[in-house]
């Protein structure tokens, strides 16, 4: 009973208190990681392990070390241990498909974690990438519902730059059509480079004689250039949006020079996936798990059950979230912040 409560709490944290069926302990959740070379996957692993073990279930995993062959062998090994669910972070989303079929054939449930592979029997869990642009625009327009907006977009060659911009436009369309919001500058930034963003922002300010009320930057690196350009005009403090959860950006949020940094918290992703895996192990039908919707935005338009997690907008009000998650230390986040101005820095 105690275990159940802890598991419920953990899952609730991630899923926003969705109702869960009664769970039985003693299941096994396996994960096949593509690599542990990158620091971030260790964060995910720790989050998943914590939730699984808190529920009284067993966590096993393997590291493919950046090799598609090794990952196939890993998955065979995991199947042999007869787990209830196998989560896969695919190294190669096509080469993995036979292994996924083997998982299904063995009667084991599979989850595509963060990286999509198009198998209709698997549950796909990731962040809602298209939503990032939307959140940036929402947070900024909350503060500045009308005025002159500047858009510092990423590299022209990167489709993400366009997706992010589309997301922003979805939110701002009404304001623009209604004449409340004016798009005064809109530039792509070569190579997503902060120094290029700074020059673009400077020229934007020059050409508009500083008549800019808000800036939407498509990432935090470029936001640093935007803020530098604004500072030189004494305008730092107008709403500026970015994304990535850069440590320096979170610090700017605390200082009040950046409004929002949209952060994809991998702890969230791990917890959500772990809770979903436990639910699957307990026999919950895939489409009955909280937050599951149909998704067919992949390469081959295969329809899959999926959970698209909303990323966390970090604003001055919730910097504590990033500190508590261990993403940034309090010292880093609050460096140079005037005492008493930010709740989380007290």
């Amino acid at each position, binding site marked *: 009973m105690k275990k159940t409560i802890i598991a419920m709490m953990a899952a609730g944290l991630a899923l926003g208190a969705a109702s869960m069926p009664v769970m039985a302990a003693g299941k096994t959740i396996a994960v096949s990681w593509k690599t542990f070379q990158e620091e971030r996957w260790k964060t995910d692993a720790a989050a998943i392990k914590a939730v699984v073990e808190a529920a009284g279930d067993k966590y096993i995993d393997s590291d493919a070390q950046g090799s598609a062959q090794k990952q196939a062998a890993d998955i065979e090994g995991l199947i042999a241990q007869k787990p209830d669910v196998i989560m896969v972070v695919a190294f190669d989303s096509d080469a993995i498909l036979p292994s996924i079929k083997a998982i299904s054939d063995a009667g084991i449930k599979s989850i595509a974690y963060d990286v999509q592979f198009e198998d209709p029997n698997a549950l796909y869990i990731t962040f809602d990438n298209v939503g990032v642009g939307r959140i940036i625009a929402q947070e900024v327009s909350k503060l500045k519902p009308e005025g002159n907006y500047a858009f510092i977009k990423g590299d022209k060659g990167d489709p993400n730059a366009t997706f992010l911009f589309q997301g922003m436009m979805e939110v701002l369309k009404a304001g623009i059509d209604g004449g409340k919001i004016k798009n005064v500058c809109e530039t792509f930034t070569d190579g997503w480079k902060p120094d290029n963003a700074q020059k673009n922002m*400077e020229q934007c300010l020059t050409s508009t004689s*500083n008549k800019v009320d808000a800036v939407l930057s498509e990432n*935090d690196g470029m936001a*640093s250039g935007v803020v*530098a350009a604004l500072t030189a005009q*004494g305008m730092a403090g107008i709403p500026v949006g970015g994304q990535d959860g850069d440590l320096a950006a979170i610090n*700017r949020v605390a200082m009040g020079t950046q409004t929002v940094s949209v952060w994809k918290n991998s702890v969230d992703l791990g917890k959500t996936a772990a809770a979903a895996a436990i639910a699957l192990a307990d026999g919950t039908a895939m489409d009955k798990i909280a937050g599951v919707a149909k998704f067919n935005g992949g390469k081959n338009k295969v329809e899959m059950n999926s959970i698209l997690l909303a990323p966390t907008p970090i604003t001055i009000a919730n910097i504590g979230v990033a500190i508590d998650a261990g993403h940034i230390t309090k010292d880093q986040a609050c460096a140079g912040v005037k005492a008493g101005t930010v709740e989380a820095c007290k």
Partner: protein
Amino acid sequence: MTNTTSTSQGPALEQEGPIKKFFRATEIDTRILGMVVALILVWCIFDIWSGIIRPNEGLFGGSFLTPRNLWTLLVQTSSIAVMSTGMVLLIVLRQIDLSVGSMLSLVAVATGVLQVYQLGPSLGVGHPAIWVLGVVMCLAIGTIIGAFNGFLTAYAKIPAFIVTLGGLIAYSGVAFLLAKGETVAPMDQNFSVFGGGVERSWLGPFWSWIVAFIACAAIIYAIVNGRRQRQRFGFPLRPVWAEVFLASVGSIVMLGTTLVMNSYAWPPKLIENFAKANSIVIPAGIENKDGKAICMAAENVVRCTEGFILYTGYSLPALIAIGVCLVMTFVATRTSFGRYVYATGGNPEAAELAGINTKWLTVKVFALMGFLVGVSSIISSARLNAATNALGQTNELYVIAATVIGGTSLAGGVGTIYGAMIGALMMQSIISGMSLLNLAAAYQNMVVGGVLVLAVYLDQLYRRNVK
């Protein structure tokens, strides 16, 4: 020996027209003159064009020929301009450094990590030792990496192209690891003065005029002294009118630039902050004429014509770039080091036979390039108030392009420092101007690439005609 009537060697002097006579007497480099004319033309076009899109207070009604944009242009050019002066010497020496961009990333990230993660927490944010150590570290690391490049080129005999291509790839990797792929920010508040983005990095009109007058005095001294030297040996002299002309052109350019810098007013917000901080009463606005000064109108601060105003004057990075240009011109033309660089570029074998240690010379020039990268990394990281491994990436292309547009020949032996400065200014003018017009980076790249090729083509034509 006997002298027959006309044994003067070389082509006979033709009867020359007034224009030709003018150029011969003043010894003005017509190629540089052409570049300056082209630059001014580009400026005018951008001003007119931007005025059509969005009228502003520029000379032709646009945004380009405003004190503000020209001021910004100088700041934006400074980092590339500083590096291009070093690249001139390297290319004159028949070497090249493709790694300057990555080196800049590495140096900037290193100083960022030092300031933000090491010294900041241990000494306390804003401690004066931080900026000193930060600057020293930039210059030292830059010089050491440069010397390393030079050592591999000169002593290990690996072609500079390969050494620095390797450096281009490797140093950015080091920068990535140092920064762990993150943006390191914010830089120390004293250090950021080098970036020109804060009030403290603006000289103000008074000191700007002092700088200008010193520069004018130096120009006049140089001309008078040169004349006296030539008199000492009874050499042919320039006509007095030509000397006066050169002195006045030099002084006018200097004073004009200063005037423009001094007519860029502080941004209104900053004036307001300044007034508040110093308890200066901002006069009430009679009229909102959209001038440069600020006044109080009810609760708000508005622009007006006669109110409270402050002017920026030269910014530190622009001043550093101008200073580096002067020092490097001096090094290139007035020291034996510079002479050796040119002679070695003209004929490496001859230089070696003349007793010049060309290997050590190569190491020194690479080290100098590294030092200048250090200077640029200070400017760039201070300006962005952050250091990332993306800072400086692809800068090598712009530095080499500025150098080549400025008339430096990749065959070696030929090139001037001021040419490269004008080249850098030309390139940044195009980028900034097109950015003012809201034209995407892709178009900017296309035009800059085209200008590079065109400049070299015109240069070839010019040289062929002169020969």
